[in-house]
């Protein structure tokens, strides 16, 4: 075969996306084309007051508004030099964690799982395997209830402002959340049992370099450093030295390289880096860790994270419900520069702002996980392409595996296209 071009519009992802794979005389090329319209959120944020930046940032994405909100507010807090008491950090992290769980549920059940049952759509899977999908709906609902208790509502949180929470969550609210999480934990166990046993298509990660935001303690906590699987650890504010960006003409999203290399961010990276900290889940971790060099295994990591975060948040909330919490600190407006990094559901998220002495944001830069993964997806797709060239895979199968591959990464295109080229 001398020439073949596969161009797949991928469905069941957030936003519009096309994956193009061309095979020419044995050479393989893949293009991850984000065709979603430009959103230019960074330009919208520049010139605004500091307290407005997180409000706008949370509108970047409906699915992970909390991650964007928290990353943005953390960046601003760092820029203003706000020292947060432990209680605030704990609740802030819980908010992020439970959102990761909820997002993972949505991705797993409604976007990724239909592939593994040969169903084209969710409704097809629902008619064939109603019990499974009902667990998904139930779990999603339970997680959303907890999100609502912590964040005020299910999108665009309104309980938190620079310097802390507006109110102390009442005791019965927290108790209710703990109760709900207890119920969710049981369901999550079923899910993990189920998903970890799934048979995955075979593929070896072509570029096993991972970046995660550092968790000083536990899993998915918010730190000031970025860790790489090569053993390097750098301060979040130094990210421009390590992560280079590039505008490509075929896509509405930028692409990123870490020290010149293609890298991956996401659930797999998190489990590989911090999996051993998941107390009580050691069996699950050891059962999937061998598979994690397969990009498709992201769904297993995600399933595991659902259970891990639910257990974690439950424990934390249970512990703080009887305590007197300090949930607010004072801050003053001053000029400065700050970077907020955290693990969004789809991986490392970086918000970077510069603030002037009047409290206006004069520079904003947002790097989203999907944009960072763009090149990695291309490389994985090329590995699949090579299999076609070598005759291991026929074209019909390849098409299916390509869209499954993209869905395994769970890209979120509305997040990826806010970038502007700055002169």
């Amino acid at each position, binding site marked *: 075969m001398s020439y073949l071009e596969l161009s797949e519009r991928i469905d069941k992802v957030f936003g519009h996306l096309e994956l193009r794979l061309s095979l020419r005389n044995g050479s393989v090329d893949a293009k991850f084309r984000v065709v979603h319209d430009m959103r230019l959120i960074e330009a919208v944020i520049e010139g605004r007051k500091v307290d*407005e930046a997180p409000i706008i940032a949370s509108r970047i994405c409906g699915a992970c508004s909390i991650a964007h909100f928290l990353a943005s507010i953390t960046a601003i807090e760092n820029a203003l030099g706000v020292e947060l008491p432990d209680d605030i950090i704990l609740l802030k992290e819980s908010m992020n964690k439970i959102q990761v769980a909820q997002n993972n549920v949505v991705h797993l059940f409604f976007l990724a799982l239909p592939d593994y049952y040969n169903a084209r759509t969710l409704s097809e899977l629902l008619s064939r395997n109603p019990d499974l999908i009902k667990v998904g709906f139930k779990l999603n609902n339970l997680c959303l209830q907890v999100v609502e208790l912590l964040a005020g509502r299910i999108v665009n949180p*309104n309980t938190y402002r620079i310097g802390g929470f507006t109110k102390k969550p009442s005791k019965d609210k927290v108790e209710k959340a703990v109760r709900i999480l207890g119920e969710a934990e049981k369901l999550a166990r079923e899910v993990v049992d189920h998903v970890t046993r799934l048979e995955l298509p075979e593929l070896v990660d072509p570029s096993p370099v991972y970046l995660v935001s550092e968790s000083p303690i536990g899993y998915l906590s918010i730190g000031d450093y970025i860790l790489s699987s090569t053993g390097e650890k750098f301060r979040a504010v130094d990210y421009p030295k390590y992560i280079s960006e590039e505008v490509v003409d075929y896509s509405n999203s930028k692409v990123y390289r870490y020290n010149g290399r293609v890298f991956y961010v996401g659930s797999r990276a998190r489990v590989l880096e911090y999996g051993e900290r998941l107390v009580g889940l050691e069996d699950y971790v050891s059962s999937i860790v061998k598979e994690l060099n397969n990009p498709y295994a992201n769904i297993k990591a995600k399933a595991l994270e659902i259970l891990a975060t639910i257990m974690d948040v439950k424990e934390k909330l249970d512990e703080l419900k009887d305590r007197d919490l300090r949930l607010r600190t004072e801050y003053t407006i001053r000029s400065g520069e700050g970077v907020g990094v955290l693990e969004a559901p789809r991986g490392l998220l970086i918000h970077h702002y510069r603030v002037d002495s009047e409290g206006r944001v004069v520079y904003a830069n947002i790097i989203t996980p999907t944009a960072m993964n763009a090149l990695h997806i291309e490389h994985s797709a090329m590995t699949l392409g090579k299999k076609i060239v070598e005759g291991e895979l026929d074209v019909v199968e390849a098409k299916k595996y390509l869209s499954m591959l993209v869905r395994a990464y769970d890209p979120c295109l509305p997040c990826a296209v806010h970038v502007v080229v700055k002169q």
Partner: protein
Amino acid sequence: MVKVYVNDKEVEVGEGSYIIDAVIKAGYSVPTLCFFKGIYREASCRICIVELGNGRLVPACAYPVSEGLRVYTNTERVRRNRRVILELILASHKIKCQSCPRKGGFCQLLDLAREYGVEGIPVCAECPLHGNECLLVRGEPCLGPITIAGCGSPCTREGTICIGCRGPITRRDVLVEAARLYKEHKIPLEEVFSKMKLFWNNHPSLDKIYNILLETYNGGEKK
């Protein structure tokens, strides 16, 4: 007994009843404001209008039933006219939600305004934070006084300012009252403007709102 058709459904009501009795018996409803059964039946607010089979619009609370009467409670024409009536009611209503005793979401006008899409009532009407807890008292630039109500004020409920995502009220008296509030609580108007630009940047009346606020704010208190 008299046979009446409400939205083509047949019901029987006693001699001397009014349309509203038939409507309720048939399982439908019409909004009422001034009507109080057995006490007040003057049809002065007119919000309860319904359409008869012959096309006339009559107030349901005060129009007696007759044999074979056909009544429609929710036609396009009825809704359009109720909207106008509501606008007229609101036009003569002093919208000062911050000092109204029916605050915290117990406002029938607010419910109707939401249902018929009439602007005029600000978020303060459904905000539970009036009085000492109001965010204005804390010096925060809440957009509640100039934002269309109907959201249930989820933001102020959680203690964060209203950022106006439901859109602005363009009525002059509401804006004047809001400017008075901002001034009373010493909220700098620049702060308010900055928040207004979050969601209303392209609103056609933005300049008008700016000017009214500014005028009142700088022109001293007009009661």
